[in-house]
């Protein structure tokens, strides 16, 4: 039996209205950034043009000229995509083995992997700079950024994949074995098709984390492999002169990711809380 809560007409209107107001307040900074990106730099700082102005696309048209946007964006795309793929290539076999052939150590290994994620990056700043600059000579290369992005996300990738894989009934894999499938065959014919949704959402989330990473991408690059985080960080204080163009480049840097994020809200919960909240 369901109890119909006694809601007054007031609360039927007031609470949803409040919810809308709160949501609009939270979205406002993003809206304001997008709005400013359509103003000229001169208009962007004039109160009289706050909401009524002649929109212009010049900030977007001049992004290459002003900021060399596409070079940084290309770097972001290359490093984030490859880091994600690399993390999956290492993570899928690992999570597969952990989910279908767990040993007594599996839980400890998983916990240890998560614990590496919790080390503060700044603690190893100098060794990383020293190793990459003086020992391996890979400082400011795509290779380095891809490797580091892959490593910092690997624990989350393995953990998320593990939770998806362990929901797959073991019998199916066993049946595959009976049919004479090799390990690779099991992964290719059974695991990947069954866990496709989980793998895709893991990939999306990892991509977002790579794209937004702002410590190593800033500290381990200068020009060649610099990503969008580095670009924006380098333009931190425009002295109010370039609000229009800065908004445009910022919008271009976060827009696609926000849209992508809308599609993986659910995975975000399990991915970020390591499954501790259900």
């Amino acid at each position, binding site marked *: *039996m369901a*109890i119909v*809560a006694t809601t007054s007409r007031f609360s039927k209107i007031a*609470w*949803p209205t409040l*919810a*809308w107001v*709160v*949501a*609009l307040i*939270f*979205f406002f*900074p993003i809206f*304001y*950034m997008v709005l*400013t990106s359509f103003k000229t730099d001169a208009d962007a700082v004039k*109160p009289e043009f*706050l909401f009524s102005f002649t929109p212009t696309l010049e900030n977007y048209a001049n992004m290459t000229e002003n900021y060399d946007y596409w070079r940084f964006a290309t770097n972001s795309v290359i490093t984030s995509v490859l880091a994600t793929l690399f993390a999956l290539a*290492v*993570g899928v*076999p690992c999570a597969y*083995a952990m989910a*279908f*052939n767990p040993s007594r150590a599996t839980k400890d290994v998983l*916990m240890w*992997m*998560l614990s*590496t994620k*919790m080390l*503060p990056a*700044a*603690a*190893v*700043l*100098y*060794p990383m700079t020293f*190793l990459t600059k003086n020992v391996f000579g890979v400082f400011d290369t795509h290779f380095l950024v891809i490797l580091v992005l892959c*490593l910092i996300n*690997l624990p989350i990738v393995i953990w998320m994949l593990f939770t998806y894989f362990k929901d797959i009934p073991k019998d199916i894999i066993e049946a595959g074995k009976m049919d004479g499938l090799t390990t690779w065959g099991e992964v290719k014919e059974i695991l990947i098709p069954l866990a496709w949704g989980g793998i895709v959402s893991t990939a999306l989330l990892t991509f977002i984390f790579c794209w*937004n990473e*702002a*410590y190593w991408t*800033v*500290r381990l690059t200068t020009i060649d492999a610099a990503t969008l985080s580095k670009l*924006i960080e380098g333009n*931190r204080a*425009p002295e*109010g002169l370039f*609000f229009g163009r*800065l908004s445009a480049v*910022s919008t271009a*840097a*976060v827009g696609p990711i*926000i849209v992508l994020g809308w599609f993986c809200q659910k995975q*975000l919960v399990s991915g970020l*809380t390591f*499954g*501790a*909240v*259900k």
Partner: protein
Amino acid sequence: MANRTIPRLLQTPAVLLLLVWMLVPLGMTLFYSFIRYVLNSTVRPEWTTPSWSNWRGFGNYEFVLNSKDFLFAIKNSLFIVGSILSLTVVLGVLIAVLINRSFPGRGIVRVLLISPFFVMPAVNAVLWINMLLDPVLGLQGIAVGAINDMAAGMQDAPLVGWFFNLWPVLEPISFRATQTSAIAVIMMVTWQWTPFAVLIFMTSLQSEDQQQKEAAVLDGASRWSQFRFLTLPHLGRPMAIVVMIQAIFHLSLYAEIEIVSRGNGNKNLPYLIGEFTNNNIGAASATGIFAVILANIVAIFLLRAVGKTLME
């Protein structure tokens, strides 16, 4: 069992990568934290290369503990993290309860609310400190200017003029000074992470026991006592998780501090490590070890909580 080899083999690359990634840099930091190691020294050139003969014992730790910067950075880190945590948890619970009902456009409300979480930290900081909080050109300056103009315009008005004559001229706040920029960082990170808290609490609220709630309604429990005695206890565990995950993330907050506060004295531990790294590697490493210890205190509790649900 003979087929233990293949599973082990499959796990090896991931384990090896993470092992090297964790042990090598951290081992180096540990070593450097016990030796004298500076990058530029004309007086003692032997200190510019790391070597066992420059052993300093706990000297770097002592140096760091006695430096004013370190104490300030620790306090400031805790101030920033503590403020963000309390704000996001309180706002998160309130908003989650607010939207945990069906109403027109709920899906859009959710999408609008979650959006700040996906803004990259660098853009977040640049957006807030320039376009929103700048005392002259930002929205803050515009708003303060508009209020002042309105008050000035109303001063000659009949009946209410006296009221606006007494109205003070508002001064915009500059968020680029040491303490105010800490506030700016708290605001922007709270804006970014409240959606995360909302999302977690909402997920948790959906698994709340409805029968218990109905029983409470039948017993005539008020809205407030339902919230206080059913919803809040139900949210206890997710709250702990949100607090711990955020603590770990925000203890290593970097981009926001770097962008908002470069050179104005508002620093946290990662920022201080960055400063030390320009010359005094020994001190940077000792500070790094302190940061690791601080993060581990939180991480142990978090891992315990995660471990409970891991194998279910």
